């Protein structure tokens, strides 16, 4: 029984620690601050860390730009970013911390639909507006939330233009493959719907494990299905793997179209070299965009990260900050309800493009573009009004 009394002491020690932590945490107050504190959690470790990092860079570039221009309503902006490792439960806890412990004035969203799902619930609970540059699954905006705002073209519409292009070219059969997680599957289901709406024939549809190490059998089945168009909803590593194994199996349909995590990302062409040529991707934004401020944004990015080009995630995150600023200035205050009202009524253009949401907070105005890797360079090829050049179609075959 000595054990018990000893462990009791231990236990009380733990409690004292915990309570001390609690009181410490409660100390920092909002009132005493002279800056505007903006908080977010991002996936900075784990599988999706690449996208999280991009978003963090975007937030930081925005902060620097705002502060250099005199801040928001005369106050400097400060950023508080945590790592949620793409875990929804951790993200929920972190947003609780940001709101009730760090007492941030403003929130911005995390990366990934699953994580955003959990984080938006917390934002809703505390009635704080949250602009989400990293989420496009429709379920998030089907829950009747009032404080979550979408920036990206919803996943289910992202491939619509691709199928429109396929139809323009007179292709008739489509095969759709996707990784088996929420976002790629959303893309794939949207593509299937678009194909049906446009009168195209979906001849093959299948999912593969997100962490697949071999897709040779899938490619063989694709070859057997012999579609005109291949649509792939994927993440980066499987985009690269699929491309290589298609080349190895000499599978060359007339059009090869990825979602946003393929040719649109700089790492894709870097990994594949010539094999990336003539593949199509979807991009929410491209450095060549001519929205007000885009060129300056690209310049400030390349100055800070020489040798790199900003991806759509960086630009989206930067624009999320811009939107917050616009909403605050329109509302004339930092009150969350005023900011929320402003966001609902805004129809504006940021460096990322147009922003306008419906009554659920879902995005209705932002337009994605199709890009194609041509001679190692990423070019916008569709729609016509944004295109830098015409798409190379049909796919001329794999390089030697």
């Amino acid at each position: 029984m000595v054990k018990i009394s000893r462990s009791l002491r231990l236990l009380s020690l733990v409690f004292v620690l915990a309570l001390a932590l609690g009181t410490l945490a409660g100390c920092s107050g909002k009132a005493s601050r002279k800056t505007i504190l903006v908080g977010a959690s991002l996936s900075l470790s784990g599988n999706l860390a690449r996208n999280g990092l991009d978003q963090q860079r975007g937030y930081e570039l925005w902060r620097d730009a705002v502060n250099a221009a005199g801040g928001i309503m005369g106050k400097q902006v400060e950023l508080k970013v945590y790592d949620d490792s793409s875990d929804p439960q951790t993200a929920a806890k972190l947003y609780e911390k940001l709101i009730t412990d760090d007492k941030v004035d403003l929130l911005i969203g995390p990366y990934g639909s699953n994580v955003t799902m959990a984080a938006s619930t917390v934002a809703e609970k505390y009635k704080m507006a949250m602009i989400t540059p990293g989420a496009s699954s429709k379920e998030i905006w089907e829950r009747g939330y009032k404080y979550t705002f979408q920036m990206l073209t919803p996943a289910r519409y992202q491939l619509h233009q691709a199928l429109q292009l396929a139809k323009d070219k007179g292709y008739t059969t489509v095969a759709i493959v996707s990784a088996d997680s929420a976002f790629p599957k959303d893309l794939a289901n949207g593509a299937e719907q678009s194909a049906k709406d446009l009168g195209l024939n979906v001849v093959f549809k299948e999912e593969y494990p997100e962490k697949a190490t071999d897709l040779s059998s899938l490619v063989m089945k694709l070859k057997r299905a012999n579609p005109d168009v291949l649509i792939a909803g994927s993440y980066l590593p499987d985009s690269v793997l699929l491309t290589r194994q298609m080349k190895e199996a000499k599978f060359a349909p007339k059009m090869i179209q990825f979602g946003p995590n393929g040719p649109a990302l700089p790492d894709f062409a870097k990994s594949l070299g010539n094999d990336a040529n003539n593949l199509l991707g979807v991009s929410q934004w491209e450095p060549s965009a001519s929205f007000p401020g885009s060129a300056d944004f690209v310049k400030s990015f390349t100055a800070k990260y020489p040798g790199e080009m900003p991806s759509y995630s960086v630009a989206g995150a930067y624009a999320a900050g811009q939107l917050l600023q616009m909403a605050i200035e329109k509302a004339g205050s930092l009150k969350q309800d005023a900011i929320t009202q402003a966001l609902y009524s805004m129809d504006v253009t940021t460096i990322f493009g147009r922003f306008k949401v419906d009554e659920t907070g879902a995005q209705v105005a932002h337009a994605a573009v199709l890009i194609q890797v041509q001679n190692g360079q990423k070019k916008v090829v569709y729609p016509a009004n944004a295109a830098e050049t015409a798409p190379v179609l049909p796919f001329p075959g794999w390089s030697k």
Partner: protein
Amino acid sequence: MNTPGWFAALLQVIINGLLVGGVYALSAAGLNLVFGVLKVANIAHGDFMMLGAMTAYAVSLKLGLSPYAAMLVAAIVLAGIGALTQRFLVERVIHSPMFVSLLLLFAVSMILRNGALHVWGPTYVSLSHDSSVWTVGPLSFTKLRVAVFALGLGLTLALLWLLQKTAFGQSLRATAQHMDLAEACGINVRRVRMQAFALGTAIAAMSGALLVMLFSVNPSMGEIFVLKCFAIVVVGGLGSFSGAFAGAMIIGVAETLTSYYAATQLSDVTVFLLFLIVLVFRPSGVLGGKAT
């Protein structure tokens, strides 16, 4: 000429499976060696592969070495890291229950993975890929994958030779079978364990360096491969090299067959079902018989 289509497809699927198996064989060999000699389940194995991959990539890029030369550099570097890990960490818990070393290596895995993330960032990298193909009738073989397969087979044979025919192998086997007895016979078991672990991480590094040619990888790649490696080693029989090679082939073919004739998504189900069935009903592996 007159091969029916379905038969050619079946053959191609099996060939693809064997070629994937070659990748797995190489990846699992190091894990198997460490388990066989040290009786330690190296859960950080995938992260040693990752370090090998990233080192090879960095060396190849900075020094302009060919990917295969970079592979050797990575193997040497990782042998050193492995030796240090064994000498200063694993060795200290070698006589503790097995789960202690497993937790220790989990901590090592956390440090390596997140440290690498800090140093290299989460960017995906890949070395130049040769996707040229040999064609035989209706069948095709990717050259690079054939090379990886040959390396996997060669390495397995080399390890078997090392174990059976050399003095070093004899001391490895003795340590594997009975540590205390081996020590009593005058074998420096501490050194043998260190050599075995270093050899294991060096092999992991080589496989990682090859993977960086086949896949696009970043510091999180370890988690994708480590559990599959465990499945392979178990299917082959823990600690048996010929078994592990067979296990890799079986897993590779099972994957491609499932993907082709059922659904791609079910390939993981097949792998881990096979793993459990073998573990429970044939714990000495599909080849059965003696381990190491």
